[in-house]
Every structure is written in structure tokens, then in C-alpha cells.
């Protein structure tokens, strides 16, 4: 869709107003998500005091961050038009490796932190290679590697447990200028995205997701793009697992599966298209916060926690319907 946005690609008949309209429709899903988050925050704020305070921001960001890191990788893969289910296995494997190997030694902890990130990168690159070279469906490839990684996690640590150095656990409590480490991580993530989305790699990923054939004909190497896309997703899954351990303090061989479909949901709620090429991380951040605030609301309303999946499911459908309608009308305008 990039070509449609740039002025030089526009048809001569296109006026400024129409261009503005196209831009608006292109971002409509994201704007719908922002409006939804504001409504949810308003409801939440009316039910509870001090919602619009720094402390609440710190808490919510900490609650959303694991999902957000996982969803960052997922967003990159979705932009390319793929899907990565293996992040669930990678998150499980990351937490159990950290829990069993960190010991109480900073040097060992550093070594294993880097190793876990490397494992994420390598697993992701293997995913990408299989998608590109064997021409297999991303859904199947990553379903299989998810199974393999979860199995490996169970072999490393059959049940929840393990231990972490005391300093590791202090990460979540650390703060600077009143903002917790999680919020600074969020700031870093946003800065990363603002830089990353302009890089040639990101443009190529988006172009491949938009139209694989024309990207290939424009000289994009599909093998390289797939390896890079899934490799990045693996790195972010590894980071999510490391962040998760700073919150829980244990390794769990089964926890990863709780993040697979929510990571897709966060991205899709935020306006990332499952068909590739559309959306961005800012939408995903909004999506992840929507899911987190729904959890808060269920808690504040003191209804059964089982309402949370129902509310998330309904919001997911509403968001997708809104973006599907917007996409249809955008397409009608372009033809």
C-alpha cells in the first residue's frame, strides 16, 4: 500500500482532499483502536480513583510488556504477510533456560541472556528459511517449531520452578524520574520502531507483505526477507521471555502458549492486517493496552474473571469488522 500513499504514485486526477481521505481510511483501524482504548480508559477511570496517575501507567505497562514484546515480533511477521506461532515455544524455552542456568552469578546470567537471544534469532532464521526455501506455509512451519520448542522446554524443566539472582528480580521495581523500568522499555520500543520503520529492511518487509511478486520483481530477496522477519520475531520472543522472568521469578515450560494468539490479537486490534503490508507497532501497542485494560476492568467490576476472554473476543471481532469495512471502502476508492 506504500505506493498508493506517496504523492508521485497518485493518479493525476487525485485531488488533495481525496489523498487526505485515502490516508484517513488507511489509518482508520488504528484510529478505531485509539478511540476504543480511550473509551475503555474513561470507563475504568470512572470506576476507580487515581487511574490517570503515573503509578497506574507503571503498573499497566508492566502488565502489558511481555505481551507487547511478543506482539512486536508478531507485528513484523504480520506486516510481511506471515504468522509466527513458534513464539509461544520460544517464550517457554527462554524462561526455563534462564531459570535453570542463571545461578547466582552475574557473568553467567549475562552469558545466558545473550545465549537465549541468540537461540531466538537462530530459531527464527530457521523458520524463515523453511518458509522461503521449502515454500511451506508459515502457519504450519511455526506450528511445528512451536511444538519442538515447547517439547525442549519440558525437557529442560518439567514443571514450573528454578531460581534467579536477586538483582535480576529488582529490574521490575527499578524506576527513574517516577517512571518504572517497564515504561522506559516502552519508550525504547517506540524509539526503535520510529527508527526501524524507515529502514530499507522494514520498507522491504512491508512491500513483500503487500505484494510478494512485485517486491520480488523489484529486486527484494525473498529468502533474506523471510530469514530477517522471522529472525527478528525470534529475538523479540526471547526478549519477552526474559522480561517475563523478571516479573514472575520462575521458569515455566508451558507459559508461552498464553501469548501466541493474544500477540496476534493485539496486533490485529491495533490495525495490523493479517494479509500483510498494513499497520504498525504503534497500533499494536494500543492493542496490547486494550487487552490489559480489559483485564483491569474485569477485576474492578469484580465479575467472574471468565468474562475477560469473552470481552477480548468481542473487542477483537469489533476491531476486525471495523478494519475490514475500512479496507473495503479504501479499495473501492482506489479502483
Amino acid at each position, binding site marked *: 500500500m506504500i505506493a498508493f500513499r506517496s504523492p508521485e504514485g497518485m493518479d493525476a486526477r487525485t485531488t488533495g482532499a481525496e489523498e487526505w481521505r485515502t490516508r484517513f481510511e488507511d489509518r482508520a483501524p488504528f484510529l478505531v483502536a485509539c478511540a476504543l482504548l480511550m473509551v475503555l480508559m474513561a470507563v475504568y477511570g470512572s470506576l476507580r480513583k487515581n487511574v490517570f496517575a503515573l503509578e497506574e501507567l507503571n503498573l499497566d505497562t508492566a502488565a502489558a510488556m511481555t505481551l507487547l514484546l511478543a506482539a512486536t515480533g508478531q507485528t513484523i511477521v504480520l506486516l510481511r504477510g506471515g504468522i509466527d506461532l513458534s513464539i509461544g515455544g520460544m517464550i517457554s524455552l527462554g524462561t526455563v533456560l534462564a531459570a535453570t542456568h542463571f545461578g547466582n552469578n552475574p557473568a553467567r546470567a549475562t552469558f545466558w541472556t545473550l545465549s537465549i537471544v541468540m537461540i531466538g534469532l537462530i530459531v527464527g532464521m530457521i523458520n524463515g528459511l523453511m518458509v522461503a526455501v*521449502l515454500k511451506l506455509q508459515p502457519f504450519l512451519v511455526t506450528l511445528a517449531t512451536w511444538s519442538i520448542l515447547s517439547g525442549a522446554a519440558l525437557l529442560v524443566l518439567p514443571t514450573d520452578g528454578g531460581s534467579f539472582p536477586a538483582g535480576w528480580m529488582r529490574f521490575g521495581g527499578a524506576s527513574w524520574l517516577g517512571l518504572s523500568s517497564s515504561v522506559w522499555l516502552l519508550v525504547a520500543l517506540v524509539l526503535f520502531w520510529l527508527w526501524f520503520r524507515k529502514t530499507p529492511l522494514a520498507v522491504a518487509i512491508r512491500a513483500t507483505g503487500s505484494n510478494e511478486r512485485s517486491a520480488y520483481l523489484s529486486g527484494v530477496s525473498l529468502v533474506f526477507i523471510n530469514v530477517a522477519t522471522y529472525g527478528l520475531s525470534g529475538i523479540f520472543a526471547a526478549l519477552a521471555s526474559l522480561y517475563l522472568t523478571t516479573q514472575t521469578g520462575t521458569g515455566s515450560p508451558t507459559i508461552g502458549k498464553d501469548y501466541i494468539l493474544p500477540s496476534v490479537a493485539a496486533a490485529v486490534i491495533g490495525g495490523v492486517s493479517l494479509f500483510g503490508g498494513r499497520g504498525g507497532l504503534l497500533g499494536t501497542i494500543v492493542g496490547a493496552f486494550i487487552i490489559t485494560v480489559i483485564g483491569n476492568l474485569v477485576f474492578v467490576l469484580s465479575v467472574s474473571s471468565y468474562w475477560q476472554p469473552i470481552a477480548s473476543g468481542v473487542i477483537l471481532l469489533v476491531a*476486525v469488522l471495523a478494519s475490514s469495512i475500512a479496507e473495503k471502502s479504501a479499495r473501492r476508492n482506489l479502483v
Partner: protein
Amino acid sequence: MKDNFGTHRGILVAYLATITLLLFTSLVSTGFLAGAHLRSMALLAAFIGIVALGQTFVIIGGGIDLSVPWVLNGAAVFVTLFAHGHNEPLLWAVPLLLVAGALVGMINGLGIEAAGVPPIIMTLAVNVILQGGILICTGGAPTAAAPTALQFLAVGRVGGIPVVLVIWAVLAVTATILLSKTTFGRYLYALGANATVAKYSGVPTLRTVVLSYTLSGFTAALVGMLLTGYSGQAYLGMGDPYLFTSIAAVAIGGTSIMGGSGHYIGTIAGAFLLTILTALLPALNLSSGALQIVYGIVILVTVSLASEAAPKLLFWRRPLSQN
């Protein structure tokens, strides 16, 4: 012609892999090929095979059904709630829940084809909504025991043949006829191969898609009730493993996850392959972690062998000389 060959190669690979695995297993584990053991494995394969029947139709049509786990679990929970351990209520509860499962499938199909929601999102959302609803209905506690008639359906035998296998055989023949001999089958393949072309060629896309998801809801609900009879009770989370195994059985059976190719005959081999693997690993003293690793590798290997790109990669040809 080429498409036909690709389809058949996938099914052939699945059956060869299943037979090889069965022979290998009988070598490492004595008594594996004994009648009683084979029968108990066939029973487990039937549960996977019946869930995967609906999934096969959905995937051939170019979709995917992630709502299987909680449709299955819902039927299992409600059949025990309705029956309260008695046999008489089953007469209305079983048909009612089969219709309910089919209705959920119909909603999936309508959301996907009429409202344009991607299949992954639609069925995922329906799955979590059902999950929440069922948990609220039961309060998260397990329910009553399965009535004896349900247990007979799941583990009983008629003339030495397990009832479940009879049900499976009837369903398998029906599925084969539907796919190979009816216009619905042709429409489904056309739709999975290229939805746009199918639509402009006059395929009734809405009806076809809705029917395929309806079938999937129906088979998931059926297996939910059979499994309740098999394990003597319904428990929460009993459907979760069937999301992975139903998709895996279809994929191993040579059906492209993109849609438009494959057949239920392949899925049957996939269901047997997964069951043999599950039975093999305890015989080799391997843990559940190893089982998951082997599951993943088997999917990758069978799917790679059936892939269009595989022959080109396996039989390397030198590029023609440049001069």
C-alpha cells in the same frame, strides 16, 4: 493433472510414513501389533480422525477452524450437565448439542464469508468467547459423570468392533462421497484453490463456506460427547490438545493448508500416524517433552516431502552450461 499428482503424492507420503512407523514400532515394542493394542489405538485415532474431518473440509476450502477446542469441550460439559448421569436425557441432549455445535460452525462461516473477518480471527474469537461462557456456566468446576449409554458409545463393542470405529467408518465414507462425488465437494476445492475465480465462476461461496464450518462444529461436538464417554466424565481443557492434533492430522495427510487440494483419505493416515507416535514414545521411555519434539519434526518432514518445492531441492540439476 499436476495438481492431482501433488495431492496424491501427499496422501501417499502419509500412508508410507504411517506404515513405516507401525513396522518400526512393532520391532522396538513387542505386543504392539496385538489385536487388543491395535484396537485401543484405533479408538484414539478415531477421536482425532473425527475432529479432523471437519477441519479437513474447512482447510480444503481455504480456511482454518481454531474454535474446535471449546466447541468440543462445550458439548462434553453440557452433555453431562443435561444428563445428570441418566441415560434418558441423552435422547434429546445429544441431538441438541450436535445442532448447537453445527450452529457455532455456521456462525463462524457467516462471520468469515458474509462479514469478511479472516478465518483465524473469527474462529479464535468464537473459541475464547465459548471458553469464557462455558467457564461461567460451570463455575470452573468439573461436572457430573458420563451416563452409561455414552460410555457404551465410546468404549463399547458391537460384534467385536468398537462402536466408535463404526461411527468413524460411516463418517469417513460420507466425507469421501461429499468431497469426491458432490457439487459441494467440487465447489469447496474450487473455493480453496482460488476464491476470486470461484466466485466469478458462479460458486455459491457463502453456502459452501458456511457448510464447511458447520461440518467442523458438528464433528467437534460429536467428539466432545464421545470423549466424555471414553474418559467417564467431562473436564475443562479437554479440547485443547485437539486444536493441534486436528490441524496436524490434516497437514500430515497431505492437504495443503492453503486450501484447494488434499482429501479426507489422507487425514485418516494422519490421525493414525499421530496416535502411533503417542503410543510409541512411552515404549521407548521418552517423556511428553520428547513427544512434542517428535510431533513437530514429523509435521515438518511429511509436509516438506509433500511440498511442491521438495523434488526440485532433492533432485538437484546442474544449471545448463553458459557457453
